[in-house]
């Protein structure tokens, strides 16, 4: 990877030159990918895939090191446009490297399959394009799982560190667990804390799987895909391959934990269980999950503990948008299927790697609608929308409404695209929702029994677009496409720098330029 260090936007005189944020973000992404590729290479040592992995890993690490010497600082994130471009370019880099890896290791000879598998991996969606997963060498299986793990971490960084700065979503990690200011990427300590919490979550999942009697390799890979709410499986039959109730209960616990905000996990690690209880969103999440499990259990009419296990598995898989599957819910009653789709659309807590609309947005959005009703009855009333005890600012609400509309538009356009490409009506609408929530399986033509290898190129293209949009929370992608790319075309990468005349017209405030 070439690094345009020389021509890059020069910061103030005397300070060390650093590459533009999109470049250094891509470099960090390449470095991480390289490390995991090396790990995959060593895992499958002796096999054919090993050499390809080692070469790719080596090249990525070598290319990543120079630009990632300097850790991104808070000040680097300042022009929002450059941060958004960085997010998009990091993801694109990871996806391209992974596509290359799949092709080079001979996992597939089709570019389309490789690209789809990479997008599904880094967006932590449970769709797979590979027909025969079980015949893949171990290195490739590890690589598949690690793409999801990396994608999950990247999305946490995006959610906790990047997005709140630019969009008024500071209530994103709400109430007490957000007492430590989110959005401060001070010298990377935040990133490290995040990584620690995420690793702890992964260890928790892996420990549960190991305790439930899984082998070491399976425990690691399934822990990767569970903690990241990804949903790739090493077996065609998913977790039911093991035929063990304890493995399934372990997955239930893991998926439920993965849908919890990572900041809550961090507080739990610090031994602040009391603080957890103050999190309104966590309470909503747990209560909703419990109610949903009971409803599904009672409604599905499955008997006893098996029914409870299946209900709990499906609900946690849907709410955390993991997409691991157990019971083939295409055979469920229509009402249950729709309920599950509604849970997929709502999603888990907002600080988690899961997808969907998220609870901490759904609750204020509902309150906002309720407030407008009250105002029509009592026009002079002052009604502050609150999430738990914390009030939500009007700016956040306004942003929230726009976000909701954007999601709606994305679902509509996606469904239209899927239908144009040949999916049936049910499959295209539910598939668009499920892909946007980075869940995976849906209904109709995209029911859990099927997988992406049945789909045509057009459908896969639309699904990839939706997964990417959903994982990046729409805003970075839309702004990059509509605002930045046209400017980049004119100015080159320098145009992202603070001092470029292209941005002189923007309002400025004491050192912080937005």
């Amino acid at each position, binding site marked *: 990877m070439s690094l345009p260090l020389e021509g890059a936007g020069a910061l103030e005189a005397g300070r060390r030159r650093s590459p533009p944020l999109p470049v250094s973000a891509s470099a960090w992404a390449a470095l991480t990918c390289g490390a995991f590729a090396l790990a995959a290479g060593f895992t499958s040592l002796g096999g054919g895939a090993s050499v390809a992995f080692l070469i790719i890993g080596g090249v990525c690490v070598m290319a990543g090191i120079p630009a990632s010497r300097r850790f991104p600082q808070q000040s680097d994130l300042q022009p929002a446009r450059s941060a958004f471009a960085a997010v998009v370019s990091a993801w694109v880099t990871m996806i391209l490297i992974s596509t290359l890896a799949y092709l080079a290791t001979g996992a597939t000879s089709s570019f389309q399959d490789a690209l789809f598998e990479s997008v599904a991996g880094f967006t932590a969606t449970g769709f797979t394009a590979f027909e025969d997963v079980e015949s893949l060498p171990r290195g490739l299986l590890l690589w598949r799982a690690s793409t999801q793990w990396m994608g999950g971490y990247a999305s946490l960084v995006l959610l906790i560190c990047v997005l709140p700065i630019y969009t008024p979503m500071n209530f994103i990690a709400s109430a007490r667990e957000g007492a430590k200011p989110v959005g401060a990427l001070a010298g990377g300590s935040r990133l490290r804390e995040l990584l620690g919490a995420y690793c702890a979550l992964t260890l928790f999942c892996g420990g549960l799987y190991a305790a439930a009697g899984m082998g070491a390799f399976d425990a690691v890979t399934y822990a990767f895909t569970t903690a990241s709410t990804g949903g790739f499986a090493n077996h065609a039959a998913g977790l039911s391959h093991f035929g063990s109730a304890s493995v399934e209960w372990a997955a239930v616990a893991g998926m439920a934990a993965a849908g919890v905000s990572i900041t809550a996990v961090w507080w739990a690690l610090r031994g602040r269980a009391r603080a957890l209880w103050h999190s309104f969103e966590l309470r909503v999440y747990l209560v909703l999950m419990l109610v949903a499990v009971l409803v599904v259990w009672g409604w599905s009419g499955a008997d006893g503990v098996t029914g409870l296990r299946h209900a709990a598995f499906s609900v946690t898989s849907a709410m955390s948008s993991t997409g691991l599957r157990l019971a083939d819910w295409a055979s469920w009653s229509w009402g249950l299927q*729709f309920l599950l789709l509604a849970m997929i659309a709502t999603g888990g807590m907002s600080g988690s790697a899961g997808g969907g609309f998220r609870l901490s947005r759904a609750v204020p959005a509902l309150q906002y*609608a309720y407030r*407008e*009703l009250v105002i029509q009855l009592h026009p002079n009333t002052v009604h502050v929308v609150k999430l738990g005890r914390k009030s939500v600012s009007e700016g956040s609400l306004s942003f929230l409404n726009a976000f909701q509309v954007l999601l709606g538009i994305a679902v509509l356009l996606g469904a239209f695209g899927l239908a144009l490409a040949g999916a049936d009506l049910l499959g295209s609408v539910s598939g668009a929702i499920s892909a946007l929530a980075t869940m995976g399986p849906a209904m109709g033509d995209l029911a859990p029994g099927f997988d992406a290898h049945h789909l045509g190129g057009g459908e896969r293209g639309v699904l990839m677009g939706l997964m990417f949009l959903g994982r990046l929370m729409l805003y970075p992608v839309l702004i990059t496409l509509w605002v930045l790319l046209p400017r980049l075309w004119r100015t080159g990468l320098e145009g992202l720098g603070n001092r470029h005349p292209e941005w002189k017209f923007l309002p400025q405030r004491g050192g912080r330029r937005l």
Partner: protein
Amino acid sequence: MSLARRLPTFYAEGDNGGRRPSNLPLGVLGLSLVFLVPGMGAAALVEWGSSTSHEEWSLGVSALIALFLGVVLVLGTRFPSNPRPSAVFPAVVWTWLGCSVIGALPYLLSGAFSWSNWDSALFESISGFTCTGSTVMGDIEAHGRGLLMWRQITQWYGGMGMVVLAVSVLPMLGVGGLELMNAEAPGPDSDRLAPRISGTAKRLWLLYVLFTLLIGLALFLVPGVGLYDAAAHALTTASTGGFSPYSDSIGHFDSLAVELVIAGGLIVCAMSFAMHYRAFTGDFGAYRRAFDQMLFLKIIAVVTAAATLLLWLKGGSAFGLSLRDGFFNTVTLASSGGFANIRPGGLGDFAQWLPSGQILLALLMLIGGGVGSTAGGMKVFRFNIVMGHTARALQLAIRRRAVLPVKLGGRIIPERIVGRVLAFVTLFIITCGAGTLIVSALGTDPVTAASGALSAMSNMGPALGEAGPASNFTVFSRPARMVLGGLMITGRLELTAVFLGVAMIVRRGIQPLRRRR
């Protein structure tokens, strides 16, 4: 009067000192019931004059019941001069519920639906008054012409709205009249066409009558369309309702001319009546100023083109046929008319279109017609504001300190209205989703359930899946139909009135309990 005083006076305002109780909901309901009498009478005349089944007595008896109840309520109550919002919303809800119940009487009395099947009669009546046009009548032609005419007339009443009709003869209401009208169709623009709000209501209704007559005349001029057919379809075209006395609806005529007249009528009536009125009085700039209404035309043009291309290129039909059916179905869905156009060799059954075409049509249902018209759905005005707000949010993500207004055709929309519209959209989607969940839980497949709920909320009529234009709503179970009926009223009254009205009614209902405690 003494009887009236014993009626429950939930909304009595203050101490009346022995006068008639001031009770807005019952008064407006009574007045609306009185207004239903001429319609029932006209239907009875049609039955008497032309039908062989001679069920005019059922319509006559219903008319007498409506007249009696209406007169008692009107004479027994006094209209407050300045009603509070807590009385306005229940008034609208009671009026619509009462009219739907009384409007179902002819179906039951004539035996079109048996008494044990009362919910189907109520569904048919609600579907009529809300201008939805979903039907559970299996064999429509088997019924008397008068009864079928009553079906059409219910839609005509619902088109402009019974409350607006009542307000037109209540000059004493003052500002409360405006609130009543807004509660029935709370378009964000409260256009005043006359100094008095009752004058505005009167003008709107007169224009509505005029449009109905014009559409009827145009239909009558088409060869092969009789007076009865012309009248019946004019009533449901002007109201963008969609009922037809034939089970194959417009396809019965198999005539391009009829389709064009009805499509033209639907387009006109799915745009603001206030705008039309201004143009009628010589102010032709009204059309140019109404940006959202013109956007409605553009949406129709774009979707017609897209649907035609889909049918022609992907569906493999002839171009002429694709254009004809693409246009008619686009118009009838965009204006929430919902006329079916099932004819041999045609493409009228849009539930059989390609899935992509069906998604386009569902989008049309959601967007709906122009504000201030008889059409349903979310309304283009709201759609436009929502898009403007979203574009602004994208701008603000990179230019956080910018102050940007939401504009509609160069006019700045106040933030209050933007907030209301956003809340409306949220509520609309949640209500639709909740309705779908309940309907699908009652044993309907998701496509039929979701499109049925959407169709009911936007007062469309036919849905997709099994409840398409070639079918009817008997595919839903009886409890599911009741849910859909509730959604129809909710959609017709644009959510707010129903939610607040029901909340007020419940609150009033439990207030005695609270006091005792």
